């Protein structure tokens, strides 16, 4: 087992709203290790994108971190000065955003932006230009020199996402976070991007964190998976264990509902009934209780414990052993 590069401990974050604050993250803990691909999966609104943004220190002005720590190489970046955090971004922790359509500035060329994005690298401008060109080449963009002079809207969605990945890799960051890297793409593009990420992963020695709601992406790319529900981590396991021996009822339901895992015979797409709880007023017991097939009386009154099922396999459920 390698040492953790990034550790999140009991991270608790509220969004200030007009009324009661929304508790978007409720005590999230996880680790990302060098040379490993960590997947974070969950429905929309479960807090996975908030988590990704918080790791970058970009949670927004209405977000309030009330507890917990995010440590990069043993140093808590939440309490660091803004200037220190700014210097970490891009160079040590980089991010690929969900929507390639809007991720680039529409009035600057791709090249100008890729050069700008190396602001924290400290290398001279000419070197940055050739670094940008080489990285575009490496992510499989056919004519990198032409691409450098193009405006974002002149590229296809897939090319833009490749450029976004190239941008994130420019300064060889130790941690690469990809927030729904394939969601905005069509199926062919998705396959190509997954293929690209797998190739990059083999000669990359940092940690990759992939945030997605698609189990297929997780299965193809990740070594370890964290399942989130209602602002909490409900299950954590290596990818094989998770798909073959899930312990949390939510994980089981999620796998059952994944279109890719269905057999042809099934006529209807199964869904998880009900809705996630209102995070401005989360329930006292298990947040999944109202939708759970295995619900017991205790689930409604007491918060579920963190159960260690095996090495690296944790489930937050009263019924984890049943």
């Amino acid at each position, binding site marked *: 087992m390698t040492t953790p590069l990034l550790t999140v401990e009991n991270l608790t974050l509220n969004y200030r709203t007009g009324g009661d604050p929304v508790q978007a993250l409720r005590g999230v803990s996880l680790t990302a290790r060098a040379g490993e691909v960590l997947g974070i999966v969950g429905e929309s609104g479960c807090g996975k994108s908030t988590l990704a943004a918080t790791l970058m220190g970009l949670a927004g*002005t209405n977000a309030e971190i009330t507890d917990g720590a995010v440590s990069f190489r043993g140093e808590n970046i939440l309490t660091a000065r803004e200037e220190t955090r700014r210097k*970490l*971004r*891009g*160079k040590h922790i980089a991010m690929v*955003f969900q929507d390639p359509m809007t*991720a680039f*500035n529409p009035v600057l060329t791709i090249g100008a932006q890729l050069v*700008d994005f190396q602001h924290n690298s400290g290398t001279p401008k000419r070197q940055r230009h050739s670094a940008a060109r080489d990285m575009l080449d490496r992510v499989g963009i056919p004519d990198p020199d032409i691409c450098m002079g193009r405006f974002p809207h002149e590229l296809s969605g897939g090319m833009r996402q490749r450029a976004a990945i190239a941008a994130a890799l420019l300064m060889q960051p130790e941690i690469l976070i990809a927030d729904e890297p394939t969601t905005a793409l069509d199926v062919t593009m998705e396959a190509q991007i997954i293929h690209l990420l797998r190739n990059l992963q083999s000669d990359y020695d940092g940690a990759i964190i992939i945030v997605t709601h698609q189990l297929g992406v997780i299965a193809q790319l990740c070594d370890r998976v964290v399942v989130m529900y209602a602002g909490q981590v409900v299950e954590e396991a290596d990818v094989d264990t998770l798909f073959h021996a899930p312990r949390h009822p939510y994980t089981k339901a999620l796998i059952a509902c994944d279109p890719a895992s269905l057999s042809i015979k099934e006529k209807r797409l199964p869904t998880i009934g009900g809705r996630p709880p209102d995070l401005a007023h989360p329930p006292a017991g298990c947040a999944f209780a109202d939708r759970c097939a295995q619900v017991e009386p205790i689930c409604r009154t007491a918060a579920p414990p963190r159960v260690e099922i095996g090495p690296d396999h944790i489930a937050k459920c009263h019924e984890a052993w049943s």
Partner: protein
Amino acid sequence: MLNYAIKRIGLAIVILFTVMLSMYAMVFLVPGDPASLALGPRATPALKELLRERMGLDQPVLIQVWSFFRNAATGDLGYDVWSKRPVFDQIMEFFPNTLALGAVALGWALVLGILLGCAAVVWRGTFMDRLLGVLSVGLISIPAFVIAIYALLIFAVWLHWLPAIGAGQPGDIVSQIKAVILPAFALGIGWVGYLARLVRASMLEVMNENHIRTARAFGLPERRIVFRYALRIAIIPTIAILAVGLGSILSSAVFVETVFGRPGIGTLITGAVQKRNYPVVMGTVLFMTAFYLVVVTAADLLIARLDPRIRDVFRG
């Protein structure tokens, strides 16, 4: 785009026509005859008759309206009985001074307004942002001619730094520049506040877009994000406002020009109003309205070319 252009230009022509017609209607609806009003109670009937003839007022009303339109279309705005010169020539003599004043005023207001707007964005949510907000509102509300008089008193009368009166000697560019500084300061200061506010609002909208988050995620300094990434996009709506600004700033130059005794459209028309010199007033109003419509229409078309989304926003 072509459809939009035709529609927009057509509308401008219809508006100009309506304006001319209502101005003429106003003259005829008001009791009293322009010639006797202009000459005052002691004028002899013969003199009144002469003036009436010179101004074309002895013709039937419909003929008057028709000839006014026909002449206006060819750039002939009538004849000024007092100075014995065509109205259009007088406008052309004074207009460059007013245009120069308006351009300088808007120019410095634009530079400072954008800087202050960006500063407010960099400092958003802080005390400085609030202070700039209050300052902007204050600058917008204080009348330009009060500022003009104060500036005149302080910088021209007390400190003797700059001339108090005139537009400088013809051909002497230094004296012309000196003469434009105080009026342009007074005229532009309200626009500083207005543009600062506009740029701030427009920037804050852009700052919420995804690509700004990308730039942040690469650790770019906030100042670079504001000036290089957000300002380029936020500046587009400002162009539309600038056009409206140029049209209206030339009219509000009236007061400032009077304070500084600066020859221009403002002094031309106020003098004419005081003398009830109809042809000059009507010609000037018509000219300024036409100029305003041309600038605003041109800006609308430019914006529509730059960004089709804006087209609909600015029509409402």
